[in-house]
């Protein structure tokens, strides 16, 4: 077995090439993770400016950050916006995915296109467009967290559909038919047959939407008004070097958290894949 794999590798790359490529990949990984590592290092920096040389280690910034009322408010705002927008986007996407995957829908091509367009619309454009919509009172919500949440739902929708729709489409149609033949109602069929099979995809759609929202700054910076989400707070802080040192610790925690969330989403999705293939 091992020998076969070696010959396979040999076909596509020479031994020297492999060494070079491995070195390149190693360098790539170092550069890829260098910024994150530096941030973690600087979150313990005793100096007030994030610059070399380091002036000793301290955890005081973590203490300051944890006691800052404005940081806490921004974080809480972000968590609420992300949770709500991810839940709403996932729910709407779930509802829409089923007919798109299974039913005959008139104008399916147009609906699918409309649904995916938010993926390519520059966020700056969507941000200013929503700003006009809310600020000018076309839709009387005004600026604030609800507006931000709505903006995030629009962007998260296509992601959620792209995760849910292929999964629903891949479920054996006969399972549904059997449920109906046995007298299940539409809702019963969904709850007892469909839902158990797509729970991992629902979770991963939720997590992806959540991770997106908790990091989104462009749209939020236009329509958050005087209720900054955490990224907006961070963004305005990063423009002033003297403010940044207090922001780095929370940033570090957030990086680690979103990293874990993203990995969780992926692991859940894969487990779902395996479960479905096993049937």
């Amino acid at each position, binding site marked *: 077995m091992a020998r076969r794999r070696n010959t396979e590798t040999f076909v596509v790359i020479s031994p020297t090439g492999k060494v070079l490529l491995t070195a390149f990949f190693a360098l790539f990984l170092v550069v890829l993770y260098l910024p994150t590592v530096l941030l973690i290092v600087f979150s313990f920096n005793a100096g007030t400016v994030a610059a070399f040389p380091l002036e000793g280690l301290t955890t005081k910034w973590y203490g300051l950050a944890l006691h800052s009322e404005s940081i806490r408010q921004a974080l809480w705002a972000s968590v609420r916006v992300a949770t709500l927008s991810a839940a709403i986007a996932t729910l709407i996407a779930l509802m829409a995915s089923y007919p798109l995957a*299974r039913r005959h829908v008139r104008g399916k091509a147009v609906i699918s296109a409309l649904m*995916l367009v938010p993926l390519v619309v520059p966020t700056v*454009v969507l941000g200013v467009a929503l700003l006009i919509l809310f600020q000018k009172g076309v839709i009387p919500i005004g600026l604030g967290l609800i507006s931000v949440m709505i903006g995030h739902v629009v962007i998260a929708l296509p992601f959620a559909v792209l995760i849910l729709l292929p999964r629903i489409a891949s479920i054996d149609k006969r399972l549904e038919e059997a449920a109906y033949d046995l007298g299940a109602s539409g809702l019963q069929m969904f709850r007892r047959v469909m839902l158990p099979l797509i729970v991992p995809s629902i979770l991963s759609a939720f997590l992806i939407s959540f991770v997106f929202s908790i990091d989104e700054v462009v749209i939020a910076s236009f329509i958050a008004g005087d209720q900054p989400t955490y990224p907006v707070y961070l963004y305005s802080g990063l423009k002033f070097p003297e403010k940044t040192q207090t922001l780095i610790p929370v940033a570090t925690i957030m990086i680690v958290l979103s990293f874990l969330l993203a990995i969780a989403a992926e692991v859940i999705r894969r487990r779902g894949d395996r479960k479905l293939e096993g049937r």
Partner: protein
Amino acid sequence: MATAAQEPKAPLKRSRRETRNDGGSALSTYGLLAPMLIVLGLFFLAPLYYILLFSIALRRFSPTEALAALNGELNGFTTELWSKLVGVDVIVKLPGIDLTVPTMVVALIFIVLLLLAVSGGRISKDRGGWIVGIAFLLLLAPFLTLPAGNNLLRIMSLSSEGDSLRLFFKSVSMAMTSSVIAVIIAIPVAYFLAFCVGKSKYTWMLIVIAPFLTSYLLRVFAWKVILGDQGLINSGLMAVGLVDEAAPLTFLIYSQFTVIVVLTYAWVPFICLPIFLSFETIDRRLLEAAMDLGATRWQAFRKISLPIIAPGIVAAFLFVFIPSIGEYITPTLVGGTQGTMYGQSLASQFVGGAFNWQYGSVMALFLLGVVLLLTFATSRFLRSGAGGNL
């Protein structure tokens, strides 16, 4: 008889049969779709409609009026602001040619080229690719220079009043540079993962992609710590004495260079995936056969792998290029005055110093138009890059 034979093909009947099989009615079908359509209609199409209105409104709003509620003030339409953006002249300077044409003409050529490329079966796929390529070159033209004698000659430039448009083309060329570099870095990484690491390749892929999913702001900020005047690189070079302490390398931060580096860095992990997936579709036996027949590894790569992964590479390029054109955060944080981009200027019309919502709407729609046109013209590649999921 004739009508009976036609009837089973009628779409109405087929749909009824399908619905019955699914145990659902048309009502439930559209009922399930309704929330999504309402959200997209109210919060996606409506806002876009309102920036369109703003961009062509006859009346000029003062800043306070712009912020006030809408009271039917848009009582007439004009294209004045649009001509402020695109109504400038393009000066084409090629050896022997010195031509002044309106931007609209160039834009029209661009649009026609892109639409030609997607005009279905009329044009072969290969030629369609070439046409899209030429259209992209046209986008770059205002920044292309040719050596002429001892000077560099800009082959196309904009007349002096075209500041926004010049900024737009600058953004395009910055986005193009960073996406090309990103692709060049991602190809060997993807190749390595696809062919050299055996079974653990998916785990490695996850490790490569993970940074993409962490805070964008912070990754940009971290580059300030690396490239800044007292950053990692400068202080490292000072420590070994290559750079004088009083004169750090200032081009590293707050410049076009910084923006391009950071954009490339931010997107590379993301595009490793489509390229990796297209490498995965290559049948290894093809490569073995090629080498059995005496091809070198390079020849096998060029003649077999490259044509197979080409659509994936184009898709990867577009995944970076299209969103980078409208980039706003990165140049604000690390671009300084030299690395400004179109997205910043657009944002400043709404929340910054310039404050002209109507001209900002024109800029926004222009950007949206270009991006949608590019996406539409290249949707074939994008779809292949997304593994057919789109």
